[in-house]
């Protein structure tokens, strides 16, 4: 057995849909998280090299606003997501220090791949103006054209390369 049995995905899907609808109704916008990490970058650069942060064409859009880069709706949403995940893992006794990997890959190889995958994801999310939640989930629920194309592109990219990473997971 690779992992325990979790909650029924259809039930979770309905609940997630309602959370998303709640965000739309209260805020007029959907969920998301990837720009949190771009804002962390912006805040870090603004702290260490303030001139560069103001001049760099992409970061400046986070820095030049009237509020500090981390005072943002999505940053607080991501913090909340961390707390919610922590609470759920806690009540099911699932908090455990580990490196998730298949039986035929070592710890260090898995961590290098996690880093590389993270770099690609961070880059791609900025390029596409969003990630699986901000673009695919939120946009698709609004029937945004580009978000549907984006979602199918994610599946295409992952299925096309899954074969090369089979030893990492199976």
């Amino acid at each position, binding site marked *: 057995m690779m992992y325990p049995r979790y909650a029924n995905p259809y039930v979770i899907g309905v609940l997630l849909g309602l959370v998303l609808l709640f965000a739309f109704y209260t805020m007029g916008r959907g969920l998301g998280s990837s720009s949190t990490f771009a804002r962390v970058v912006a805040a870090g650069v603004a702290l260490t090299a303030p001139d560069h942060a103001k001049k760099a064409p992409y970061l400046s859009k986070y820095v030049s606003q009237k509020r500090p880069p981390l005072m943002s*709706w999505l940053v607080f949403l991501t913090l909340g997501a961390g707390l919610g995940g922590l609470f759920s893992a806690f009540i099911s006794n699932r908090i455990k220090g580990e490196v998730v990997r298949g039986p035929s890959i070592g710890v260090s190889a898995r*961590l290098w791949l996690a880093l590389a995958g993270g770099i690609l994801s961070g880059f791609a999310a900025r390029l596409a103006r969003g990630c699986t939640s901000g673009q695919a989930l939120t946009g698709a629920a609004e029937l945004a054209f580009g978000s549907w194309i984006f979602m199918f592109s994610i599946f295409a990219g992952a299925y096309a390369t899954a074969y090369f990473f089979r030893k990492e997971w199976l």
Partner: protein
Amino acid sequence: MGPLYKLGWFDFAYSLQMAALTGFLFGFVLERAGFGNARKLTAIFYLRDFAVLKVMFTAIVVCMLGLLYFSVFGWLDLSRVYLLPTHIWPQIAGGLILGIGFVMGGYCPTTSVVATVSGKLDGLIFIGGMILGSFIFAELFPLLEGFYEAGAMGAVRLSNVLKINAGIIALLVCLMAVGAYGFVEKVEQKFGDRDTLPIGSKRMKRTGAALLVLFGLILAIINPDRIVAERAKTAPILPERRSEAVKPVPPKAEKSATPGFVIVEDEGC
């Protein structure tokens, strides 16, 4: 009538508290589904467990139906809901790269946060990678700017591009979801591990599928686009009602109802 924030029901500080609450629920349901575990997430790419697809499609369909019905009932002004603009080429390229990053790293941005808080070191490393990746993008931006803006189509919906009304699109999405559920369940039964696949009665699934199709069919018949357009024509009623709704909130509310208030900087992901 919603969206509440854009109609001045509460201020920025309160919106951040709403963000934390919404995020809490978001993270909670993701962890419940097992999305803090990279093996559960990537099992979809080896045809063993389609939880990712089921959760995503169900959430999309439920929220889509909610948005359209809310707009038909006049509870939500969809024109005030932020719609992601389409930039077709960077979205295709970004999607492909994000997909590779997903199967390579085991997570997507939000799920890596949930993984990290439940103690997965690979989740934390993935977050570090995302920060690095965002930094690389920001530094390379002068080179990428042309491509980043390529294929701009504005904030368009499927109904604008395909020139079909939103009700029929909604029905098609419902039908596609039900078809996808049926297909992936067959694939799962063949390749998956029966001990970890979810349990659920056939009757519940059939009822759920029938309900989705029914809700989609009603939308296709009543045509939400037409109803919203007709309501806009009989406009005089609407602004009055809006100012009524806004009244209990101090003067700031008046200002926030003007278009200048709309926050545009980062409403994407």
